[in-house]
């Protein structure tokens, strides 16, 4: 699907995979660094020495996954103090994120997307319009734990949304409009809103064009703006649910000829629980 949608966006791509959840004490941290020859071995040695825990490491290219029982605040504190060049892409008991510049097909091969296993995943291929092409600007965006969002479209008020959130102490990593949408929704979730009520508020507060596909540890959620300016197609079968910008990306899925294929309506919340 990612390879196919490379024709819609070929400058960068990303994927969030939701794995079987870890126990309550453990977290999965996805890390990225711009240096493609980064010394992950020394990173690992220093981290084990500092954290003194039974961490598990996986590295691929300029990405690493750390699974450990260190609390999130301590991990972030160690990372920013000892390895400021390393960016935290995601944290949670389930989520793992990969994103990079380049053609989506190459990125999928680079990080072995075909071999990843999980309950659900959210991918994105990007054609940048509003902000720079960089791995940090690529989607999915994450906020909080086990939450990610991909966006097709452009928001017209990301800066005012951002200013509103920054006053509440929420920090941003890029000037990307989708990050504003992502942090807005996660802010509502962290305030206790359900995803549905967070989205109802987003319909009022976020201005512009969007199809958002979001995921939590156990739910996949799809919405389109009130004018449905950006596309989406859903295929539902007994075995899976697939969502794409176009049917082209779904056309070669198993048993697609028996799927219920439909176009989601504007400002309607579609959600599926794993």
């Amino acid at each position, binding site marked *: 699907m990612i390879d196919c949608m490379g024709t819609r966006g070929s400058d960068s791509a990303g994927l969030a995979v939701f794995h079987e959840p870890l126990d309550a004490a453990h977290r999965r941290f996805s890390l990225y660094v711009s240096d493609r020859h980064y010394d992950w071995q020394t990173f690992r040695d220093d981290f084990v020495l500092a954290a003194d825990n039974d961490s598990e490491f996986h590295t691929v290219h300029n990405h690493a996954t750390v699974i450990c029982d260190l609390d999130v605040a301590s991990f972030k504190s160690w990372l920013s103090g000892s390895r400021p060049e390393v960016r935290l892409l995601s944290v949670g008991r389930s989520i793992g994120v990969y994103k990079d510049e380049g053609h989506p097909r190459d990125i999928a091969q680079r990080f072995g997307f075909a071999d990843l296993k999980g309950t659900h995943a959210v991918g994105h291929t990007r054609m940048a319009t509003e902000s720079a092409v960089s791995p940090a600007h690529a989607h999915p965006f994450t906020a909080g734990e086990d939450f990610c969002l991909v966006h097709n479209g452009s928001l017209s008020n990301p800066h005012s949304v951002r200013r509103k959130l920054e006053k509440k102490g929420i920090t941003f990593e890029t000037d990307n409009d989708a990050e504003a949408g992502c942090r807005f929704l996660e802010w509502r979730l962290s305030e206790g809103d359900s995803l549905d009520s967070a989205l109802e508020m987003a319909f009022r507060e976020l201005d512009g064009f969007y199809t958002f596909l979001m995921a939590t540890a156990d739910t996949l959620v799809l919405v389109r703006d009130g004018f449905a300016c950006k596309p989406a197609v859903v295929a539902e079968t007994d075995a899976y649910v697939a969502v794409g910008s176009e049917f082209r990306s779904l056309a070669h899925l198993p048993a697609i000829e028996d799927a219920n294929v439909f176009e989601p309506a*504007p400002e309607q919340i579609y959600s599926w629980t794993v």
Partner: protein
Amino acid sequence: MDRVKQLDLASLSVREVNQFLHHGLAGSGIEQIDIVNPDGVHSIAAGLDGDFDVDIRGHAGYYIAGMNKRARVTIHGNVGWSVAENIMSGSVRVKGHASECAGASGHGGLVVIEGDASSRCGISMKGCDIVVGGSVGHFSAFMGQAGTLVVCGDAGPHLGDSLYEATIYVRGDIQSFGADAQQEDMQAEDGDTVSRLLAVAAIDGDPNQFKRVASARRLYHWNAAVPQEY
């Protein structure tokens, strides 16, 4: 010589298929072309000009049969955005559902969507006829200048916004009218038009059940006396 030719998009590119449809048919005796494995790709059978039938077997992508002249194109599945955009003549029939902007800017000919059409169906239509067996989404027939849109199901919000001289007939519920669109009484000739279009579209329906929607023509002239806010 075979009258029917099959083209397989699993092995041919869209460009190869369309080049054959544009240049390979003259004098060939082929009257019907079957296109298999469309798999959602774009622009299949765009820019045709000829008296022949094209059948696309499966779901297709954007801009299918755009700018069509004379040819009769049938899609045996769903289509993406802008099917039959700028159709000039001939006919385009979708057996499944159509995404946004079906029949956009169509000048002539007939577009039939047997299932539902999504938003902006018939946007800026300029003389074509569109018959939708199911329902249409928001802003359908937006700025429609000429031609007729027949909707056998329901119409979404803002139907006929900024309508010029296109006429809309809806059998089901209309969620809301767009600016300057209004419901009008059905006259005898309206019933005749709906009857004729349902017949050519081969869709059953009683013309008496339809409502007529047309322009109130209040937007035709700028009224400086009305307070405006921008």
